[in-house]
């Protein structure tokens, strides 16, 4: 590429990134109201629901809580939590065949390992009669670093019983996300006992991290199975601009940091490419960044205007984002629970209500409009 073309490319990306203010999102005339369900969790990071409507909630500081029939009990203090920057206790997931398989899974930034610092770990435990036991680390990414950013992490099962986990690139974008021999910036896939499926895409590659399912991610903090297609949808934080929603394909490269719709925090560019052969385009990208965390598809009849669509938390703008989608992409965006606080997680409960974890507020239930 000659200098002129390069300069032109850089200029046009800068222009795009600066010019797009967040004018494409609507504010509701009449917003949804909410009811606080748990107020003593400072940073409710992950939520998951049992068939009977009771649920588990994680606190970033390292505790797991169980909420049933209106009361909340602490059921675990998870050891080896690396509570620094974005690290801490992260997501929680109940086995889809619970209680036949009475297992829960959670992810956390972990100090386990020889080096100072931390990296993301996947833990399995038994959850029987309201008690947690037999915590077992199934996977621990390495090497540790004292950097405070990009641990991920979310967990999800697909319809075949595979468990997916996201890990962010740990603030090492030039080193981790494009290298399948290293942890970080990846979606991983496991069997429910923590073993690695032999048909994982890089299983046969000698030095690869065999649990990797897709790569080239930055910091995915939302992951949910699509209720109809059964595909795994993920959203991830971009830098300044360029948050993305991606539909995960086996062995695919999502491009970070080679291609991106974002720029550095200081306004400079790190790439002039938004697409390249062999790298996936996002289903949707946000400019400016909303800092997305938590994602759910609404299938419940309790919120007719939201049904079939995506909800995603916005840490930055402090609302729950409603994305109206069809096969062509995102058709419309709306702010729900506007100014409620930093929305960390969102989940549709088994009772059909939408539950939201908000930093500094707690776990709330979004009330349908009467």
């Amino acid at each position, binding site marked *: 590429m000659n200098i002129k073309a390069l300069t032109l490319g850089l200029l046009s990306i800068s222009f795009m990134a600066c010019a797009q203010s967040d004018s494409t999102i609507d504010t509701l005339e009449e917003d949804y109201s909410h009811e606080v369900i748990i107020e003593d969790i400072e940073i409710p990071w992950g939520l998951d629901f049992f068939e009977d409507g009771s649920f588990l909630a994680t606190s*970033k500081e390292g505790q797991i809580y169980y909420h049933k029939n209106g009361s909340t009990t602490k059921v675990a203090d998870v050891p080896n939590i690396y509570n620094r920057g974005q690290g801490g206790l992260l997501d929680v997931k109940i086995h889809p065949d619970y209680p036949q398989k009475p297992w829960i899974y959670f992810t956390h930034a972990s100090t386990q390992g020889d080096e100072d610092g931390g990296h993301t770990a996947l833990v399995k435990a038994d959850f029987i009669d309201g008690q947690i036991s037999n915590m077992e680390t199934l996977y621990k990414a390495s090497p540790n670093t004292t950097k405070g*950013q990009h641990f991920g992490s979310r967990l999800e099962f697909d319809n075949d019983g595979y468990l997916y986990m996201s890990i962010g690139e740990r603030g090492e974008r030039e080193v981790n996300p494009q290298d399948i021999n290293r942890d970080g910036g990846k979606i991983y896939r496991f069997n429910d006992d923590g073993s690695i499926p032999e048909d994982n895409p890089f299983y046969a590659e000698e030095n690869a991290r065999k649990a990797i399912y897709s790569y080239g991610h930055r910091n995915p903090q939302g992951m949910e199975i699509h209720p109809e297609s059964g595909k795994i949808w993920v959203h991830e934080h971009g830098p300044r601009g360029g948050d993305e929603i991606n539909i995960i394909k086996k062995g695919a490269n999502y491009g970070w940091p080679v291609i991106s719709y974002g720029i550095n925090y200081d*306004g400079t560019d790190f790439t002039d490419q938004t697409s390249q052969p062999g790298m996936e385009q996002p289903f949707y990208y946000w400019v400016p960044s909303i800092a997305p965390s938590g994602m759910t598809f609404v299938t419940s009849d309790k919120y007719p205007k939201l049904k079939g669509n995506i909800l995603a938390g916005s840490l*930055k703008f402090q609302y729950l984002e409603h994305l109206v989608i069809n096969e062509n992409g995102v058709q419309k965006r709306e702010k729900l629970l506007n100014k409620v606080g930093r929305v960390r997680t969102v989940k549709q409960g088994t009772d059909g209500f939408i539950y939201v974890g908000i*930093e500094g507020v707690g776990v709330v239930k979004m009330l349908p409009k009467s």
Partner: protein
Amino acid sequence: MFFIAFNSFYTGLEFESENSSGYYPITQEKDLKQSIKDGQGVYSGFCIRCHLSEGEGVEGIYPPLANSNWLSEKRIESIRSVKYGLKGEIEVNGKTYNNYMSSMGLTDREVADVMNYVMNNFGNEDRDLSQVTLKEVSKLSKN
């Protein structure tokens, strides 16, 4: 000689009892230049995402650190917010902010360094704000 050794040993004990994080601080102070330099690294890792590269913040969402009246008028609150986090409504440079900043899990040394970086950049360098010392950070409790 004996006195000095005894004295620093005693100071160490005092820090330990005041610091619930389990972090055992080195009692030597850094010179300001080095502290600012180290603070820049902390800033890039923990602060820049919200407060941005010139400390300008985002109006109505993330308060500015550039020319911020908090740094001069609310020095203790500023240090405490970096050490323990901050929640609720505050007024910075005449504008109201109501957000939640979690504790970053920084060591006291890192808190002092990043404070010194911020206090000596973003237009704050002309305001003669005195150096934040490790001792000043260590003795601050949550409330």
